[in-house]
Structure formats: C-alpha cells, structure tokens
C-alpha cells in the first residue's frame, strides 16, 4: 500500500530542553482515515507542524506522497489541507474574502476559485453568515470556516488538528460526518485526544505517548489488544436482593468474581471461558431473580481500554523503551565504511 505520510526517525527537540517528538516512525496509508491519538503534550501537533514545514526537524525526515517536507516545500503543502486547533482567522475579513485569499494562496485561477468557494460556503453551512465579519463568529463557525479553507485547494490529504475541540454536540456531529464523507475520496489525518471521535470515524490509528509512536496500525488490531474480561449489569433493586443475586452469579462456573457497587453488579469472567455462554448464564440468573435489568455495559469503551492499556504498557517498559538497536559490537563498521552508510 502506498504511503501518504511517512516519517523516518523523526525527532524534534526545542532548545535542548523539550523533546516534543522522539525518534518517531509513522506510516499513514493512502486513502486511510488515520487517527493520531495521544494525551495532551504527546507531540501530535508538533508532528503535524513538522509535516507542514512550519517547524524543522532536529533529526530524521518526513515525506508526504514521497516528497520531503520542509519550510519551502510548496508542493507538499499544496497536497495538504490543514485545519489547526481553534483556527485563528483574520477577524476583519468576511468568510468569502478569507476563502478567496486562501484560494489565491493556493494559486487557483478566478474561474476555479469562485464557484468552489460558493459551494464550500454552502457545504459547511455558513451561507447565512457571509455578511458577518469573522471576528463575530462563534468557535463552531470559525471551525467550519477553517474546514472550508482546508478544502479550497481540493488537496488529496487533509490534516485536521482537534477538529471537534470546543464544539457543541451538533457541530461535533457535523465535523465527524464530514470526515467520514471526505475519507471516501482522500486521506484524512485527525489528531485528537477524544477517543470517541477516533472510535467512530477512523480505520487506522497511531498512538503517541511522550513524543513516541507506541502503536500504529489498523483500528481492529488495536482493539484486538483489549482485555475484555468484565462487564457490568445495571439492575433496579434494593441492596439485599442485589447482594443475593450477586451471590448466585458468583456460583456460575465461568464467572471468576462479582461485586456490587451501588445499583450495578460488576462481573469478572474466568480466563479462557466463552464470553457469550457466560453472559447467557448471568442473564438467566437475573431473570430468575425477577429483577428489572436496566442496562449491560461491556466494561469501558473498547478503544479507551485499548488506549489506556497501551499507555500503561509503555510506562511499564521503562528503560526498555530506549531503542538499543543492534549491539555496538555487532554493528562495528568495517574499516572502509562511512558513518553516513
């Protein structure tokens, strides 16, 4: 599969003080909706800025569609539609003027630019706001305009940094639906720390932690890593019948343990048992007790579990995270070889 984005040992150190991106290898396949996931300060935004040439790498290299990234890599940026977090837009302009400016920056001739701007304004739902100045826009409206700006050049790669940050539920839904739709025809990279967004729209995911890529691959591979050994039942009952039911559930062979917390019973399964059969047995016990079952939760959100598990594993690896590579003894160069090799 061809790569839309590829980085090779990409490193960014700010003033010898802050290691923002640490020896990172990333591969985003063409046509993927790629979620770049990580806690705040993990290095997501710095990575995106390195791709755009807004910052220079301290070491390593990055390429987009096979072209090297850099401050004057105009052709790389022509192929990218970038949406920054909470975009700062020139407040004295009106949306059409702003999109026209972006169109000119992309070098689009007037006859292409004008109709495209009109259709984008309509597509992002800003038709009624064309008379307003951008400084009067809400966060959601500014994000929509930023989305339209990222699409003016019709780029094959979209890089959106926190596209749902600060949005109300309707605006968030709009952004997610749009990403899903755009992902049908182009590569989309979405950087976020909101797991629900990634879970909903992405088919590939990369997890960053402390500047490193600790997982990168298809979403299903990440979910496969999930430990699914517990679920919770929400039952409407007093404490005594709940305790009684919990006791009966514990007697089931495939259940390792069960405990009551408020109105919920947390059931932990014995390892290696069939989950469906165990769940069926547990539900039979609830039915026998004649207690109203309100909800069943399969532990935490799958992606959240997998993500937290990855972070946990990365933390626990400690010094093993240092990439020793080959042993210095094995990799001693022959007398005539150069260091660049």
């Amino acid at each position, binding site marked *: 599969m061809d790569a839309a984005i590829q980085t090779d040992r990409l490193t960014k150190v*700010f003033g010898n003080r802050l290691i923002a991106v640490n020896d990172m290898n990333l591969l985003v396949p063409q046509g993927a909706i790629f979620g770049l996931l990580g806690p705040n300060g993990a290095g997501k935004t710095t990575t995106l*800025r390195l791709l*755009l*040439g*807004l*910052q*220079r790498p301290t070491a390593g290299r990055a390429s987009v569609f096979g072209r090297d990234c850099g*401050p*004057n890599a*105009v*052709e790389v*940026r*022509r192929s*990218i539609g*970038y949406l*920054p977090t909470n*975009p*700062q*837009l*020139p407040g*004295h302009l009106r949306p059409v003027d702003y999109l026209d*400016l*972006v169109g*000119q*920056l*992309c*070098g689009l*001739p007037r006859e292409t630019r004008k109709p495209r701007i009109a259709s984008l304004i309509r597509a992002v739902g800003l038709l009624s706001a064309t008379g307003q100045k951008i400084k009067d826009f809400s966060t959601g409206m500014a994000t929509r305009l930023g989305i339209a*700006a990222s699409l003016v*050049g019709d780029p094959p790669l979209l890089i959106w940094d926190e596209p749902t940050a600060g949005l109300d539920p309707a605006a968030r839904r709009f952004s997610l639906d749009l990403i899903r739709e755009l992902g049908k025809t182009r590569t989309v990279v979405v950087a976020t720390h909101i797991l629900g967004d990634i879970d909903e729209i992405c088919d590939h995911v990369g997890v960053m932690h402390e500047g490193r890529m600790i997982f990168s691959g298809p979403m299903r591979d990440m979910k496969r890593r999930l430990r699914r050994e517990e679920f919770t039942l929400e039952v409407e009952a007093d404490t005594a019948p709940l305790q009684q039911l919990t006791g009966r559930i514990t007697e089931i062979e495939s259940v390792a343990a069960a405990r009551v917390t408020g109105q919920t019973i947390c059931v932990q399964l014995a390892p290696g048992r069939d989950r469906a059969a165990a769940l069926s047995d547990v539900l039979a016990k609830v039915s026998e007790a004649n207690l109203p079952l309100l909800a069943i939760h399969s532990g935490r959100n799958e992606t959240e579990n997998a993500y937290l598990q990855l972070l946990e594993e990365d933390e626990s690896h400690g010094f093993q995270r240092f990439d020793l590579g080959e042993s210095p003894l094995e990799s001693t160069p022959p007398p005539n070889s150069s260091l660049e090799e």
Partner: protein
Amino acid sequence: MGMDIKARIMPGWAIFRHDLGSLASSWLVRLWLLLSGLTTLFLLATQWRLCDDSTLISVLLFPYLVAPWFFVVFMLGVGPVAGARAESLSDGILSRPVTRYEYLLASWAARIVTVLGSFLVVVVPAILLVAFADRPTPADPVTTYGILAALLVVCLVLALEVSLAFFLGTALRRQMVAVALLAIGWFISATVLATFKLEELSPISLNQAMPAMLTQNWDETAAQTDDFVDYLGNMGGWLSGSSDNYFAGNSSQPKKDGKFFRPEDYADVTLWKVALGYGIPTLLSIGLATAVFCRRDL
C-alpha cells in the same frame, strides 16, 4: 506563459494585498494619519508667516525625520510574525503553498507601502500648498528637484526604519521588546551620528540639511554625479591603501579635499550619498530578516 507567471506571483500578491488591507484597517494607521495630519496643519498655521519656503518644508518633514513618528513607523514595521496572534495568523498563511520568501517580502512590501503612502498623502499636499501659495515671506528658490529629492530622502529614512523594525521583530519575536530596543537605539545613534557630523546617516543632520537640498536644481545633479565618481575613486583608493597598509604597510590615499563634510552650509549632503547611507542598511536588514525567518521554527 502569461498564465504561468500570473499563477506564480498570485500567492505573494495575495499576501501583499491582505497585509495592506489589515494595516489600512488598523487603529494605529488611522490614528497616525489623523495625528500627522493635525500636526502638519499645526506647523503650517504657526510657521506660515515666519519661515521661508525651504525652512517651512523642512519643519514639516521634522516629525518624520527626527521625532516622534519614528516610533509609529517602528510599530508598523515590526514583523508579521512577532507576537502570539500574529504567529497564529502567519501559520494560517504559511501552511498553504507559499514559500517563506514570498511571505516575508510581500509583508515587508505592504509595510513599506503603508508607511510611505501615509507620509506622502499628508505631506505632499502641504508642500504643494507651501510652494504655490502667495505667502507674506520673502520668496526663496525651492526647486522641483529639491522637493522631489527631499521627499525621496525622507522615504529612504522611513524605509530603513521599517526594515530595521521588520528585522528585529522577526529575530526577537516580541513586538514590544523590538519596538523599545529600536526606539532607544535609533534615538542614541541619531544623536551620536549628528554629533560626529555623519550627515548621510543621521536623520537630525539630514533635517538640518533640508533647506539647502530644497534649493538645489537639476543642473547640480550632474556635478553630484561627477562627485560620486570621484567618491568611488577615493573609496577605491582608500580600500587599496588600507589593504596595502594591512599587507605591506603603505600609507593610505589622502582625501580629495581633505574634508569629508562642510557643516556650515550642508552642501555635501547629496542624494546618492543618502541613498547609499540608508539603502545599504535597508537591504541588509531585509536580507538578515529573510535569513533569520527561513532558518527558524514558527
């Protein structure tokens, strides 16, 4: 081919127009236009009956050459990437298919046009009024060449101020620090240069030399050109003398008349010397700003 060139210059032209629009709609430019207009009116009203044409025009140019407008020019010139908000806005442009050179040169050009436009729009009508009005003062021979040369000199000084501010704003990334440093540095250097009578580099001496310059005519430019050729010859001699001194210990060439400047009449202030004195540092500032900007992170 024509379309190709048009497409190539489109991003730079768009940034130039955008920056020009932003500057024109800024409160700083509007306030400056208002205050400089009022100052010009005040100077005209108070000096109308007292000064001859050349002195009055020099008085009108004083706020631009000496004080206080250098401070405003520095504020306008401080780069488009100084300050957090400016950096965010520049991100929005530089994440598009635009080179850093295009961005920087277009922004600099927009600042130059804004400053020079604001200067000319206020001063030119006032100068025309002074030159053509029938005033109750003895007429003195202010020439068209003199007026154009004086305007060009002020434009050169303002261009240097903008370029210095642009460079320091780009290098320091802190708007107010850059402006404060520039204001202090400019004031001190202007005073020192005036004290040492380096008229080509001192705005204060330039302002004092204005009455003499305003009375020059086109015929004198030929003499100045000869003077320029002599000057270059002297420079070449000085350089070879210096290098000879350095390498072989020879003595340096004597100056043509043994005197660099005659302070009593300011006759040595010529356009080409001012152009060199202000033009070279202007080009140097743009070059340094470009070098700094292209090497740094945003």
